């Protein structure tokens, strides 16, 4: 039907060079066309590698096929594949994604010696007692007393925060940062949160209200989608 419709097109946009691959033909056909296109558009005098984004529409490619595409492009031209963008993802991947983007509600006490380790954001209704440990890949919100240790952004998310109704933690950990309680006996604080201040490169504790300016995207779905 569309014999002269091109399966593979190369376009330059404001964000850089894009290769579009039609998603209705077979992978085999697409690869053949891609090869043809790459070879014919090759510019030998350009030594500098040019970054390119491959957009494959509603086509699912597994890891092996992704390497095939990357190899084909990079061996036959001076293009460098920056990213392969697909509109679809695998079901397993989607489930993992969902798990990491959810706010998990846990309703119990974390006592001395107990560890609660979850993916995504944690909303704990209950206390964390001295010697207790809560870990999450996202943010930690505690409706209760935090006396033990809380570790937010355990997967390396430095934007993660820890908020609690009452804070008197023995340690706060965010990503790879650790801060501990002072050696003198201090009073705890109500309705505060801990986060990493980039300017002084350490964890600070401040009123919950500052979050609205410090972490504007706290409740955004995208943030939760990419944490963990």
């Amino acid at each position, binding site marked *: 039907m569309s014999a002269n419709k091109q399966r593979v097109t190369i376009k330059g946009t404001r964000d850089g060079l894009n290769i579009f691959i039609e998603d209705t033909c077979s992978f085999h056909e697409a690869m053949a066309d891609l090869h043809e296109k790459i070879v014919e558009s090759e510019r030998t005098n350009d030594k500098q590698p040019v970054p390119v984004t491959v957009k494959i529409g509603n086509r699912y490619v597994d890891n092996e096929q992704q390497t095939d595409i990357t190899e084909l492009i990079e061996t036959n031209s001076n293009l460098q594949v920056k990213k392969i963008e697909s509109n679809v993802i695998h079901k397993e991947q989607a489930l993992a994604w969902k798990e990491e983007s959810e706010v998990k509600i846990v309703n119990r006490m974390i006592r*001395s010696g107990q560890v609660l380790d979850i993916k995504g954001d944690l909303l704990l209704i209950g*206390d964390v007692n001295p010697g207790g440990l809560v870990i999450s890949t996202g943010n930690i919100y505690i409706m209760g007393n935090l*006396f033990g240790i809380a570790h937010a952004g355990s997967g390396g998310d430095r934007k993660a925060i820890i908020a609690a109704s009452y804070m008197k933690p023995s340690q706060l950990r965010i990503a790879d940062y650790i801060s501990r309680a002072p050696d003198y006996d201090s009073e705890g604080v109500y309705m505060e949160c801990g986060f990493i201040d980039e300017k002084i490169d350490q964890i600070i504790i401040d009123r919950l209200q500052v979050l609205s300016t410090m972490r504007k995207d706290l409740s955004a779905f995208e943030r939760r989608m990419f944490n963990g």
Partner: protein
Amino acid sequence: MGEAIVITSGKGGVGKTTTTVNIGTALALMDKKVCLIDTDIGLRNLDVVMGLENRIIYDIVDVIEGRCKLKQALIKDKRFDDLALLPAAQTSDKTAVTAEGMKQIIAELKHDYDYIIIDCPAGIEQGFQNAISGADKAIVITTPEKSSVRDADRIIGLLENEEIDPPKMIINRIRQHMMKNGDMMDIDEIVQVLSIDLLGIVIDDEAVIKAAHQGEPVAFHPHSKASIAYRNIARRILGETVPLQSLEEEKGMLQKVKKFFGIGS
């Protein structure tokens, strides 16, 4: 059908054995049939505190390994017929007792006794697991010290995983003046951190040490504060509502007169 209650604490030296003896005695004083079990194999002393040491012939390990019948190993208290003791072994080591063996013994005792009170060893190893394996209820003992409260918290966490009713707590060895001055944790603070029901408070009382020295439970002495506290706890176990003991120290007549004239403290 009786009820098995384990007395535990995690930390050593907070008064598990004393509490076991005195709750047992107080329950027996209220005409309940009570059996105490010492599960601290190798370090038995429940019999010493009760003054029954020289009557031991068989012990719990003999029962489990089939060298005697359960009834033969039980020691009747010299003061009541309704109070019995199953002593721990002093020579064997902790591996001689299994959770399964404990369950069997407790199930058998439940036919004859209203309350079976199990004295748990310190720590969270096998001895602890054995002691709690047959229990229906648990009482956690703590003192107003940070380390003791921390261990109680750990124990409560471990008990949550077992098929036992939510544990209740006794705060032992309270020193009123230290609590008032903030040198010890106060009762509200402990209850808030552990967030379990308070079964009773026991004031640090020299009468307890004296009674243990004489091999006579303090719950017998009608006037000491600790004795009243233990009897109140026993009444609460039976389901009565008893208010907590006041922590205020009673002032002598002279101080009252001084206060009246505004010269005392």
